[in-house]
C-alpha cells in the first residue's frame, strides 16, 4: 500500500507538476487499470482530474469514467462510484468536440445505465416499486437517446407496472403506451393498459387494446377474462355471456374460468330479472362443478354459500307481504331449505379460511336464520375478535 502511494507521489514530484507530468499520471492510471490495480489507478486519475492542466482533457475524463466504472463493477453497492463514472463520461462527451471518444464511452455508458435496469428488476422482484421506478427512469432516458430496442420496451413496461403498483395511473399509462409503441410483446401489457383505460373511462381505447391483445395472444387466459370483464363493465351482457360460453367451450375444466363464469352469471341475473332464475341455476351448477373437482376450494365454497344465501334473502322481497299466510308458510319452506343448503358451504369456507370476515358473516347470518343462536353468537364473537 505504502509503495503504491510512494510511486504516485514520486511521479508527481519528478514531473514537477508540469502538463507533461500530469499527462503521465493519466497514462500511469491506465497502466494500473490494465494491471487491475484499481486503488492506484483511482489515486492517479483523481490527481489528474484535480489539476488544471489535465482536468479538461477528454482523455482524463474518459479514463476516470472507465476506472470508476471498474470500481463500481467490483463493488456495486458503492453507488458513488457509478455517479463519478457517469459525471466523468458526461464531461468527456462535452469536451470531445469531434466525437473521437464516443465509440469508447458508449459501451461504458451502456454498462452503467444497464446496471440501473438490473437494479430496477431486482427492486421489482422485491416489490419495492418506488425504488424500481427510480432505477428504470435513468435507463429509459439514456436508452431512448441511444438504442430504442426491446430492452427499452421492457423497461417502459416494467416502469409502467411499478407506477401502477404505486397507484400513479397517468404515469403508468404513459410508460405502457411507450412500451406498446415499441411493440413490446407481452399479453400483460395489453391486459393492464386496457384496465387503465377502463379505470379512466376511456371505453374506446379499452376495447381497442383488449381486442388488439386478443388478436395477438388468442390463447391468453387473462386477456379473455379482461375481455369479459370489459363487456360487463360496458353493460353489454349478451356479449359477455357469448364470450364466456366460448371461453368455457375451449377450457371447460379450468376452475378459474368457472369462477369467472359464476361472477358473470351473477351480473347477468342482476341485470335481467326475467332470467334471474335461469342464471341462478347456472351459477349454482358452476360452483357445483368446481366443488366436484376441488371440494376444498375456499372461494367456490364461499361463493356457493353466498349465492344460496342471496337467493334465500331475495325470496323475502317486498312482494312477500302480499302473500296469503298459507302461501307465505310454504314460501318459508323453500327459504329454509335454501339456507340449509347454504350452511355446509359456509361452514367449509370458514373452516378453510377461519379469518375470512365475509365467510364468517355469511355463516353467522345462516345460523341466525336457522335459529341456531348460540352458534351465531359464537361466530359474532370471532368477528369481534378479528376486529380487535
Amino acid at each position, binding site marked *: 500500500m505504502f509503495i503504491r502511494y510512494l510511486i504516485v507521489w514520486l511521479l508527481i514530484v519528478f514531473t514537477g507538476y508540469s502538463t507533461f507530468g500530469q499527462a503521465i499520471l493519466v497514462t500511469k492510471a491506465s497502466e494500473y487499470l490494465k494491471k487491475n490495480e484499481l486503488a492506484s489507478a483511482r489515486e492517479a486519475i483523481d490527481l489528474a482530474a484535480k489539476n488544471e492542466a489535465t482536468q479538461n482533457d477528454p482523455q482524463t475524463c474518459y479514463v476516470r469514467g472507465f476506472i470508476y466504472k471498474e470500481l463500481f463493477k467490483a463493488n456495486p453497492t458503492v453507488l458513488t462510484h457509478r455517479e463519478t463514472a457517469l459525471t466523468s463520461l458526461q464531461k468527456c462527451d462535452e469536451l470531445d468536440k469531434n466525437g473521437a471518444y464516443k465509440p469508447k464511452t458508449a459501451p461504458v455508458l*451502456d454498462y452503467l445505465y444497464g446496471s440501473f435496469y438490473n437494479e430496477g428488476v431486482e427492486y421489482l422482484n422485491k416489490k419495492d416499486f418506488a425504488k424500481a421506478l427510480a432505477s428504470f427512469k435513468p435507463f429509459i432516458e439514456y436508452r431512448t437517446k441511444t438504442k430504442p430496442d426491446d430492452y427499452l420496451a421492457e423497461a417502459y413496461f416494467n416502469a409502467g407496472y411499478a407506477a401502477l403498483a404505486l397507484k400513479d395511473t397517468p404515469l403508468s399509462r404513459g410508460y405502457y403506451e411507450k412500451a406498446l409503441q415499441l411493440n413490446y410483446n407481452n399479453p400483460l401489457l395489453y391486459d393492464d393498459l386496457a384496465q387503465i383505460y377502463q379505470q379512466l373511462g376511456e371505453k374506446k381505447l379499452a376495447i381497442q387494446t383488449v381486442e388488439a391483445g386478443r388478436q395477438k395472444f388468442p390463447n391468453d387466459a387473462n386477456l379473455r377474462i379482461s375481455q369479459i370483464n370489459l363487456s360487463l363493465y360496458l353493460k353489454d351482457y349478451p356479449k359477455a355471456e357469448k364470450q364466456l360460453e366460448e371461453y368455457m367451450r375451449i377450457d371447460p375444466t379450468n376452475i378459474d374460468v368457472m*369462477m369467472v363464469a359464476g361472477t358473470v352469471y351473477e351480473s347477468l341475473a342482476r341485470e335481467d330479472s326475467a332470467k334471474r332464475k335461469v342464471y341462478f341455476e347456472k351459477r349454482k351448477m358452476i360452483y357445483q362443478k368446481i366443488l366436484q373437482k376441488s371440494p376444498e376450494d375456499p*372461494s367456490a365454497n364461499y361463493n356457493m354459500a353466498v349465492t344460496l*344465501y*342471496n337467493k334465500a*334473502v331475495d325470496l323475502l322481497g317486498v312482494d312477500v307481504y302480499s302473500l296469503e299466510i298459507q302461501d307465505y308458510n310454504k314460501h318459508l319452506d323453500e327459504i329454509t331449505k335454501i*339456507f340449509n343448503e347454504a350452511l355446509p358451504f359456509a361452514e367449509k369456507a370458514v373452516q378453510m379460511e377461519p379469518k375470512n370476515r365475509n365467510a364468517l*358473516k*355469511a355463516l353467522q347470518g345462516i345460523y341466525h336464520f336457522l335459529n341456531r343462536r348460540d352458534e351465531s353468537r359464537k361466530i359474532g364473537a370471532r368477528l369481534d375478535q378479528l376486529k380487535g
Partner: protein
Amino acid sequence: MQTLNRTVYRPDPRKNQVMIRLLQMILVILLSTLPKTVVCGQSNPAEATYKVQSIFIYNFTKYIQWPGEYNTGDFIIGVLGETKLDSELEKMAAAKTVNGRKIVIRKYTAITEADKKCHILFLAAESSDLLNSVIQKTKDTPTLVVTERDGATKFGSLINFVSDKTGKPRFEMNLSAFEKSRLKYDSKLKSVAIAI
C-alpha cells in the same frame, strides 16, 4: 461488456397479481351487487330473521280482528327491548296499511312507556324477563303480545316465534289466551300455527 438481465428470472409477481385481481374481482362484484347479503359487512346477520318476523306481524294484522274501539285511528305496533326488528317494521309501515289505517311503530325501553291503545306489542328475546309485567300491563286490553322465547306461551304470551327442527321460522298460538282476550283470529292463521 455487461449484459442486461432479462426479467425472465424474476419470480413472476405479475402472474400472482393477476390471480389475486381475479379473485378480488369476484368478491367485489359479489359484494357490490348484492346489498342484501351479509358479506357486504353492513347488513345485520339477523336481517332475514327480522324480515320474516315483520311479514308474520303484518299477517297478524290481516288475520286477527281487534274489538270495535281498536278499529279507529293509527294501528300501533310497539317493540319492547333490545332488537332491531323495529327498523324492519318501519319499512313495512312505510309501504303498508291496516285496512287503510296508518301503521305506527313505537319503540319502548320500559313497559310503562307503552301506549294505552297498543294493538301489537312485541317483546324481544333478550327482554323476556319482562314478560310478566307485560302480561300484567295488557291483561285487560286487546293487545296482541308477541314474543320470541321458548315456552313464552305458558306465561301468557299470545303468539310466540319459534323454529321447527329444520330451522323453519314458525309461530305458536296460545289458544286459551286468545279465548280470554277480545281478539278473534281467522282459521287460516291457526292452520299454519303451532297451536298451544
